């Protein structure tokens, strides 16, 4: 009998516990508005080992906004996959979350991203460069608060290359081995952009389509075929670049800030980082251009307390949030003021990434048709590596790639 009572009591407790989870904004005891904010971030932002950035920021946000009695609920979703998680069920997703800008349309299609307007938009515009905000703007509307840039650049061994060497790929290849992820469609277009190829006009005009064909693309393809024959050039695949850097067989590789700590560990004092070099095509120097984007903080349009959610997003992506993010986790800031800070700018990685973003990158398009552009480029890279793309058939192969990039078929 007692057992049965216990069971009923337990069930009642659980039911009550389930109900309390659903509280929206209710007036609290002290006349403050009760707010429940669900925040998603990558797990490093919440882990003790890397300083609990999110918890610290949220706590100080609550202190600065005494009008609200805020309960924070934390969840884990990294920037790259947040879009799938949120668009699966926007209503049951976080009020504030972080996302990579190339997933912008996934979320706007699912109506899972709120627009920023009024004084908040003005504040964001004051703190960031227009180039950066372009990566989060769709049809004139701003959809996120950027907190870092997202691109790739070059790491090199200072013992092998001088600062003058790293400005040109050919002068690097004559002195040491260089590894490039030729089969990765996020990296390979860098060569094509250098010789005048373009995607969707300036990256936002879907009707212009992909322009990866013609003589300019054939020249690049021929250059790449020859590049592969250079014994000092190695294809970086499956982590071979960082492994080579570690054992000394490779002296330069191309990657992003996520590899910074690994490179630091491998090269120590000799670690160098720089914006992308130029390459010499038919005697002319052409610049490599990487894809650039941003990571941003987004707000769910289904948030119960919109004002608090937007304010928190702006706060997390603001100067203070970025500074702490950099101190705790080396997340590279993008705030205008912070990038003038000498201490931050003296960091190799920050300088390299910022320079890449400003000078040697193109905005990674996020128009829906962009999704057709990845596989053909990857196949081109693989074809060049395994020798099925040759000087003889380069023209046909390039035209086939360009056609595939401009078609909707799979």
């Amino acid at each position: 009998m007692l057992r049965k009572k216990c069971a009923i009591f337990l069930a009642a407790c659980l039911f009550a516990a389930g109900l309390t989870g659903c509280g929206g904004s209710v007036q609290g005891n002290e006349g403050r508005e009760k707010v429940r904010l669900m925040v998603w971030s990558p797990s490093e932002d919440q882990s003790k080992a890397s300083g609990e950035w999110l918890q610290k920021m949220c706590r100080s946000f609550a202190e600065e906004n005494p009008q609200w009695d805020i309960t924070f609920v934390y969840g884990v979703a990294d920037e790259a996959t947040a879009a799938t998680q949120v668009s699966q069920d926007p209503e049951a997703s976080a009020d504030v979350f972080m996302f990579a800008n190339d997933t912008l349309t996934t979320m706007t299609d699912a109506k899972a991203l709120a627009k920023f307007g009024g004084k908040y938009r003005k504040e964001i515009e004051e703190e960031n460069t227009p180039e950066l905000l372009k990566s989060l703007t769709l049809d004139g509307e701003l959809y996120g608060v950027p907190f870092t840039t997202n691109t790739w650049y070059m790491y090199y061994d200072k013992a092998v290359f001088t600062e003058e060497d790293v400005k040109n790929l050919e002068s690097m290849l004559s002195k040491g081995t260089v590894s490039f992820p030729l089969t990765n469609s996020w990296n390979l277009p860098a060569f094509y952009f250098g010789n005048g190829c373009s995607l969707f006009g300036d990256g936002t005009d879907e009707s212009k389509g992909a322009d990866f064909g013609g003589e300019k693309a054939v020249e690049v393809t021929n250059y790449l075929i020859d590049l592969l024959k250079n014994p000092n050039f190695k294809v970086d695949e499956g982590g071979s670049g960082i492994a080579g850097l570690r054992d000394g067989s490779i002296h330069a590789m191309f990657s992003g800030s996520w590899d910074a700590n690994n490179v630091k560990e491998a090269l120590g004092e000799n670690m160098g980082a720089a914006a992308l070099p130029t390459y010499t095509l038919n005697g002319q120097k052409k610049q490599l251009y990487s894809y650039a984007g941003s990571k941003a903080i987004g707000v769910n349009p289904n948030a119960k307390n919109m004002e608090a959610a937007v304010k928190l997003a702006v706060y997390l992506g603001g100067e203070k949030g970025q500074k702490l993010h950099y101190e705790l986790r080396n997340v590279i800031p993008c705030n205008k003021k912070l990038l003038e800070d000498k201490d931050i700018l003296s960091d190799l990685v920050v300088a390299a990434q910022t320079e890449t973003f400003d000078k040697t990158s193109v905005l990674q398009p996020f128009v829906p048709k962009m999704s057709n552009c990845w596989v053909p480029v990857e196949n081109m890279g693989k074809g060049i590596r395994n020798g099925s793309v040759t000087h003889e058939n380069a023209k046909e192969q390039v035209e086939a790639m360009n056609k595939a990039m401009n078609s909707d078929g799979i």
Partner: protein
Amino acid sequence: MSGQRMPSATGRRSVKNGIVHIVLALLAVIWLFPIVWVVLTSFREEKGSYVSNFFPKAYTLENYKRLFIDTTVLNFPRMFMNTLIIAVCSCILATFYVLAVSYCLSRLRFKMRKPYMNMAMVLGLFPGFMSMIAVYFILKAMGLTEGGWIRLALILVYSGGAGLSFQIAKGFFDTLPMAIDEAALLDGCTRWQIFSRITLPLSKPIIIYTILTSFMAPWLDFIFAKVICRANSDQYTIAIGLWKMVEKEYIDSWYTSFAAGAVLISIPIAILFLCMQKFYVEGVSGAVKG
């Protein structure tokens, strides 16, 4: 004299055996290759996902230790426990469902028997993950997609469909002679008693098979766990954890630990199999007298 030229019968046989053994040995090497590689990688001391040699240059236990010590970003012990709880519970439930349904379909005759079997056949033709979004929204409507309820949700998901996969167990029950059941009925047994006291003890191999498959399905599943867990990192199962370890940000530093995790998840399955293996050979032999 000519006998020396002609190979003897035993000689020919040993040549044949030799060839067979070489082929089998080759196949064994091919099959074991990936497993050996994973085990070697789990003990590898060099970091990173790419190595140029098959055998590690140095061996270490650090990769295993790290899984249990470095829990701030990826909490492996918690994922392991989550998965174990979910797998054990759904294994018990699913095994019971499968055996009970199979017994009913094998021994009882009722109106819906044939239509049920046909329906199960048709439903079984669709891949289970087709329903995953629908399953997610149903569970959400029941409030089972947040916090600790996720475990219950996953147990329900993994055991709920068990009643449809009765075919193998039913086939086995069909081979048990009806005469035993009839004799028991005459002696006054109820259906439940026949099932639990007579049929089950005679069907150890199929019970073992059912337990193993219904343990492994939730233990290894990725897709449902991913859809239902979403951002609740404290409810992650091992499959999600291992998948996280090979993402761009983690792969270089977690790769060897990923291999260690892969070795560790095979341990419960191996233990379960070893414990139950001996029952495999015990069959119906000698059960029916006369």
